[in-house]
């Protein structure tokens, strides 16, 4: 089969794979941009995980805006303009969070009594009860009285709010506009309508900028809050980095190939080879995974670095006098096998992101190998003289090793390698080197984080990321269970272990208690003192009785219907066969006391996704460390079988040395290490073994050096750029690989020119 036919078949196969990917991405596969979703909720029981996923899904579409201006009127005008423009994208809550009104409507129904009022009525202290009520009525300036008196002349609702406010440590009157820094802010909240989040958020951002500019004379200040803003920024950043860094790396590689090989055909075949690898990798993950994380693509850029090596080795092999082709193919196969073995181990890691990267790399490399071996090789190539630029590059690269050979520093070099390795083993034992906090890896969109901080400060909604979760088979059992937790949390507030807490279930007595409360109120209304009080208001006793005889009982569903969809409503999770209440905590000063609560009735779960994920990440990091050791041992066995044990041991020592340099320089650069530095180490192993296999093969030294130098430069171009990423995870990976590759360029030739030469 000639070259033209082979390349036609190849292009056809790749086009098919491309079509498969496009179909999968349009039908079943979704892109995930939330960095917290990199790790699954393995820390929680399955039923809780399902409930939490439900919460996350709704949280991800929540939007909250603070609209500020110099005066209340202006802030209302701007708010209305913004609301009108954003209505195609956001389903706004019917009104901003208005806890006072909601509570007033509900807790005047005669089913709710604050504990001291309940106690008063139980002890038949009707006079005291009415006396307190009269005090509230006559208190000068108590503007809530006017609102409440028609529906709740006994002010039971107001009193219940006071009780809630004091025991839960909350300021419930969050209804008013907020004045701060000379501006009046009003809040708008809602949920994104169905559609593509990124598109919606992009348009929302555009409108917000326009409105801010339009009303700049009124000092318009619009503050955004919501997960969707952050995930969109992260996704756009990742897309920008993949496209811009990818393009820059591609241009650099094209220029290099043109200068070194002086022909467009090697360039065309290199680009086709790399593109085929990427498309094959993409098709593989699209067929094997339902949900692909955006970070997979960022890390998968590393495929460019490895797959182009194969074509470089091929074209370097064709420069100068003819060599035995089987030797070249043997080295190429060995290089593929070590990489595939390494990535197969990676695929076993308990992390979807790593599995996706591994699958992408394995299929991509396989494609690059097949293309080099069976397509490029089919071309009737002529052996050509090495270009001047290539010869010049090799001469410069060879200089330091000439010096090493002359000074016979083999022993010294070996001692250095061993010393560094010992240090590496010792330092990796230290847990303090690593920071596993997932929040450190999130895209630092500083403007958005600043807005989020301002939002929390202005609205005083400083809830902890950790919350308590109580589950039960049904509502009544949930209310009984949470009753115990309420008592414990109220005690914690009094002991100043927490500042406040918020839970829907705390607002609701169980059915039995509600009936009892209503009976007590009706008994009070029949008393002389209550009738005397009501006569002052010109209220007839029967009519008042009617006010407190509404619905038989109030359920959690009744309460949630009254609350904003994007707000407190999400504190209740309804599963298929269970129900859960979320307890938000504010300013916890003593987490040990909160953890202690989880060991007592009703055994709530303490859920802190960022922290829990960080500890899972720590465990995964330890397993990746073991995995790396496993890959090095496997590589040692394979290289010993291919060459000999001594050479294999030295080779592995060199790769480990490059890893040590990579980790050390990353530590100096960032001040800590993270799991992504270990992913970088994995790539260093793959590339290092690739270089060493070619150095140990009986191929021409100059050609091997040329190929390795070119592939190192191409990898440096790809990963050096990644170290400028705004995403700390990607930057850690990029800087780690960059320093590791530099170390490989410097150390790996010693295996041929220092180790073997003696």
């Amino acid at each position, binding site marked *: 089969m000639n070259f033209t036919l082979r390349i036609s078949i190849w292009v056809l196969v790749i086009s098919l794979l491309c079509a498969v990917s496009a179909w999968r991405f349009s039908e079943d596969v979704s892109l995930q941009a939330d960095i917290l979703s990199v790790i699954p909720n393995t820390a929680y029981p399955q039923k809780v995980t399902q409930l939490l996923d439900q919460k996350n899904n709704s949280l991800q579409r929540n939007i909250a805006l603070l609209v500020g201006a110099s005066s209340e009127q202006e802030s209302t005008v701007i708010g209305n303009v913004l609301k009108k423009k954003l209505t195609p994208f956001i389903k706004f809550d019917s009104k901003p969070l208005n806890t006072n009104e909601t509570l007033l409507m509900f807790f005047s129904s005669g089913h709710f009594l604050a504990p001291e009022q309940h106690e008063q009525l139980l002890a038949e202290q009707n006079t005291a009860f009415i006396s307190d009520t009269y*005090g509230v009525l*006559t*208190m000068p300036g108590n*503007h809530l*009285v006017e609102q409440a008196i028609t529906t709740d002349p006994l002010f039971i609702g107001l009193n219940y709010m*006071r009780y809630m406010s004091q025991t839960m440590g909350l300021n419930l009157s969050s209804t008013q506009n907020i004045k701060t820094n000379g501006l009046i802010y009003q809040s708008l909240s809602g949920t994104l309508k169905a559609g593509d989040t990124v598109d919606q958020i992009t348009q929302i951002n555009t409108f917000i900028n326009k409105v801010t500019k339009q009303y700049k004379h009124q000092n318009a200040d619009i503050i955004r809050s919501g997960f969707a803003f952050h995930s969109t920024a992260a996704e756009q950043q990742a897309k920008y980095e993949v496209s811009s860094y990818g393009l820059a790396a591609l241009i650099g590689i094209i220029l290099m190939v043109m200068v070194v090989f002086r022909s467009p055909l090697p360039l065309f075949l290199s680009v086709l080879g790399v593109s085929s690898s990427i498309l094959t990798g993409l098709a593989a993950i699209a067929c094997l995974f339902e949900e692909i994380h955006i970070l997979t693509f960022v890390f998968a850029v590393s495929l460019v670095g490895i797959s182009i090596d194969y074509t470089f080795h091929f074209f370097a092999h064709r420069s100068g006098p003819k060599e035995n082709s089987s030797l070249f193919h043997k080295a190429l196969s060995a290089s593929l096998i070590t990489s595939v073995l390494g990535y197969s181990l990676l695929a076993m890691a308990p992390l979807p992101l790593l599995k996706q990267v591994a699958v992408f790399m394995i299929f991509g490399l396989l494609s690059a190998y097949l293309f080099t071996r069976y397509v490029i090789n089919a071309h009737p190539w002529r052996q050509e003289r090495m270009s001047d630029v290539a010869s010049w590059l090799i001469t410069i690269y060879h200089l330091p090793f000439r010096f090493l050979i002359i000074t016979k520093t083999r022993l010294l070099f070996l001692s250095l390698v061993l010393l560094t390795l010992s240090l590496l083993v010792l330092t990796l034992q230290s847990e303090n080197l690593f920071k596993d906090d997932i929040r450190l890896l999130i895209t630092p969109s500083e403007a958005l984080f600043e807005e989020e901080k301002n939002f929390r400060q202005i609205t005083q909604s400083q809830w902890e990321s950790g919350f308590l979760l109580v589950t039960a088979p049904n509502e009544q059992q949930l209310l009984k269970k949470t009753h115990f937790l309420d008592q414990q949390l109220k005690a914690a507030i009094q002991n100043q272990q927490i500042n406040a807490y918020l839970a829907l279930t705390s607002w609701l007595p169980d059915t039995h208690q509600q009936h009892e409360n209503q009976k007590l109120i009706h008994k009070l209304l029949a008393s002389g003192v209550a009738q005397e009080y009501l006569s002052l*208001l010109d209220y007839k006793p029967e009519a008042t009785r009617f006010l407190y005889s509404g619905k038989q009982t109030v359920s959690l569903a009744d309460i949630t219907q009254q609350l904003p969809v994007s707000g407190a409503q999400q504190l209740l999770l309804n599963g298929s066969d269970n129900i859960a209440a979320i307890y938000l905590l504010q300013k916890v000063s003593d987490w040990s006391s909160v953890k202690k609560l989880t060991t007592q009735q009703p055994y709530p779960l303490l859920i802190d996704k960022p922290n829990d994920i960080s500890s899972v990440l720590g465990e995964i990091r330890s397993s990746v460390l073991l995995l790396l050791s496993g890959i090095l041992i496997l590589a040692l066995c394979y290289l010993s079988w291919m060459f000999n044990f001594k050479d294999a041991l030295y080779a592995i020592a060199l790769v480990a040395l490059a890893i040590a340099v990579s980790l050390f320089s990353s530590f100096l650069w960032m001040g800590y290490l993270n799991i992504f530095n270990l992913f970088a180490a994995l790539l260093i192993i793959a590339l290092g073994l690739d270089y060493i296999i070619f150095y140990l093969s009986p191929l021409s030294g100059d050609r091997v050096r040329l190929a390795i130098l070119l592939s190192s430069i191409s990898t440096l171009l790809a990963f050096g750029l990644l170290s400028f990423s705004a995403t700390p995870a990607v930057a850690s990976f990029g800087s780690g690989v960059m320093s590791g590759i530099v170390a490989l360029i410097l150390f790996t030739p010693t295996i041929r020119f220092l180790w073997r030469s003696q």
Partner: protein
Amino acid sequence: MMTNIQKWLVSLTLLTSFNITQAAEPVIWQSVMQSLSESDIAQGHFKQSKHLKILKKPIISSGDFALLRDHGLIWNTLKPLDSSIVIIDNRIYQVRENKKYLLVEEKRQGIASTLLSILSGNLAALKQSFEIESSITNGEWSLQLNPKDEALSRIFKLLVLKGEKQLTSARLFETQGTQTYIEFSQISNKPFNVQQKMLLSEPALPSKQLGP
């Protein structure tokens, strides 16, 4: 010798002229502060008429009050029903069996601190939150307090204080239509009894922690 309460009332009267005699304001202000610092206690009777928009007839109540200047106020309603509230700083308490329970804690300037400032004649505090206009007609002075503070303007439209030799009345116009008219009488600086001292000094009891 002038009693403390007389000094306080004189100083309150002097306040009224501060808008008319702008140039002399610092001198008046100094004398007001001086006389206020000499007197800590005031007691008297009140008659309150509260007109709620929703009710046909006003709610009329009467009782006595006791003021510890710039600190606290006991507002003791005796007729038609017994009821007692205590205001200390920015907190309003309900009194039951001589013990006080927290009813409202104001985070911003509100009714508690305003009422205390009015009865204490604390011009500095009032000037921060209100535009003050004064006038004198037939020997009776009148102070009109227009809230300039955002939080207060949600509660009050206007406050009008009137008096001659002493403060005689306060009229509170609330934003939601409620009007409260309070007449003061028999103001003296009689010392507090044990119960009053206790209510204005002892810490409040927390709300009882029983489940609803």
